[in-house]
């Protein structure tokens, strides 16, 4: 089989598989898990932009998921905006927060950058838990309306069950994936990787490190917050618990397992690591122990991730690549 044929078969069959998944697992509960796993792929894809492509270990980045969930629910509860505007508004506001937080953080490098983003994540948590008038503090926000789209009077669709929501989030996440894949081919996308590989060298060829990293950080915030918005309108309840460190750890596991700095890796990792904790949900008390052990084992023994491993394996067999990777 030649490369072009493989590629032309591989991609449509994958999409077909994703489209048919809710019919393969038709129970409400399994469909719920499928939707959640798609929602968390946004977190993983967002973190991958700043951590995987641009090489900046932004430990606080996953907090933008919770922030996005809060922004989206507040837009819909306080201002009564329809879902489409909530989503767009969340993306815009989160990008703004990304600018405000990214600018000071990115003055620093390496470890110090990582710790500062973590500090901002903590501040978000404290503000959200203490600003009771706006966020109802630890009680969380309830009664967030389901997502719906409306064009005039003649077209209206409400995403009120798992199946419809699955296709909505699938479309959005595949679109994001496609956008990222194309984006990484552009000059700016390549600049991200250049900064990761060598900041001094890339600034010597006219790449402005601060602004390129800023763009990467804001993009990451935007993508992560989209997941938060989808989450809020699906689960219809957000609380400060979403800021928990458990989710930060989990997001890193997703990115690393899938393959740091690959296009599809975080997508796969995100899906897998939403499903695994759900499977172990019965063992709620052991959940952190499981996730923690998996994190340690993966970092030590499996640093290239699934996609990275596959790429290695294919290179060894000297076969053409089925899809492009940016390892």
């Amino acid at each position, binding site marked *: 089989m030649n490369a072009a044929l493989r590629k032309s078969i591989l991609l449509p069959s994958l999409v077909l598989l994703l489209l048919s998944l809710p019919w393969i697992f038709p129970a409400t509960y399994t469909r719920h898990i499928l939707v959640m796993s798609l929602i968390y792929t946004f977190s993983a894809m967002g973190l991958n932009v700043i951590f995987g492509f641009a090489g900046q*270990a932004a430990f606080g980045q996953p907090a933008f998921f919770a922030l996005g969930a809060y922004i989206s629910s507040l837009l819909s509860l306080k201002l009564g905006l329809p879902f489409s505007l909530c989503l767009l508004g969340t993306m815009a506001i989160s990008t703004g927060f990304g600018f405000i937080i990214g600018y000071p953080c990115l003055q620093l490098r390496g470890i110090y950058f990582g*710790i500062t983003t973590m500090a901002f994540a903590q501040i978000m948590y*404290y503000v959200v838990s203490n600003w009771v008038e706006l966020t109802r503090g630890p009680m969380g926000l309830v009664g967030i309306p389901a997502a719906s789209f409306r064009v005039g009077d003649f077209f209206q669709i409400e995403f009120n069950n798992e199946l419809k929501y699955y296709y909505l989030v699938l479309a959005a996440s595949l679109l994001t994936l496609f956008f990222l894949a194309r984006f990484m081919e552009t000059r700016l996308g390549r600049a991200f990787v250049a900064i990761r590989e060598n900041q001094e060298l890339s600034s010597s060829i006219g790449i402005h490190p601060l602004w390129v990293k800023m763009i990467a950080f804001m993009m990451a915030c935007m993508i992560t917050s989209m997941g938060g918005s989808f989450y809020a309108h699906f689960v219809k309840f957000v609380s400060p618990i979403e800021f928990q460190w458990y989710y930060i*750890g989990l997001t890193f596991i997703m990115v690393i397992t899938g393959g740091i700095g690959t296009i599809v890796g975080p997508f796969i990792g995100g899906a897998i690591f939403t499903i695994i904790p759900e499977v172990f949900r019965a063992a709620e008390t052991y959940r*952190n122990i499981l996730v923690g052990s998996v*994190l340690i084992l993966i970092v030590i023994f499996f640093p290239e991730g699934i996609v990275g491993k596959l790429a290695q394996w294919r290179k060894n067999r000297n076969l053409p690549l089925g899809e492009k990777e940016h390892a």
Partner: protein
Amino acid sequence: MDTFSLAIQQVVNGLVMGSMYALMSIGMMLILGIMTVINMAHGEFYVLGGYFCYFLITRMGFNYLAALPVAMVLVAGVGILSEKITVRPLVGRPWFTTFLTTFGLSMILRDVAQIVWGVDPREIDSPFLHKRVVLGPVYLTEHRIFIFAMGVVVIGILYLFIKRHKMGMAMRAVVRDREASALMGINLNAMNSFTFALGAGTAALAGSLLGAIFNVLPSMGELPLVKGFAVVIMGGMGNVQGILFSGLILGVAESLAASFISLGLSDAIAFALLIVILLFKPSGLFGKRI
């Protein structure tokens, strides 16, 4: 109580807390400086210190002063083990890998503590807890004075150790240049184990001292951890006095904020301070390279 005496009372309380923040941060600073490891499990060493101290007193019949060093040694052992599992296999890999493994370790230890000891708060009984001391407008228990004294004395000992002792000098050499100091006959693996043991031990001391004021809980390690990082960055790397002063500054700032701004937001002060300092003086308030 008028505002002035309230302020003085809060400053004194803040100094007590601040000495413990400094004690937490010293270990984190040494681990970060010597091994380039952000130890996310440091808060769990603090928790374990509290629990070991509690059980040594209630189950084994130790008295408080005897339980303190024993708990420290036990947690130092846990520290050595942790280093073997999460840091040793990753030598030569990028620095964020150890961040992630120690993060995983922290998740594991926290849940283990919860499963083994439950979520009920435990009270450590200190013999100094019941006597009150009045110093002008300030009311204190003897225990708080004991905490402050312990904090300052232990940090003083560490300062002298790092300055004068052969091992301390070796530590400073490793911070300067890992490869060269290995060539000079410093055993880096032993150094790493020792650093982790030292960090875990001091964190355990902080946990068992503060555990007598606040209750011991499986989740109590999170705040000291993040505040510890704030202090490390405020103090500037590799600077023991700087850590002590920054810890005290943070403690005072927090307790003043708690009574004059908002109790809930006082925990966010550390992060706000951290961000301001990183922006205007990234090398830290007392920063100098060792």
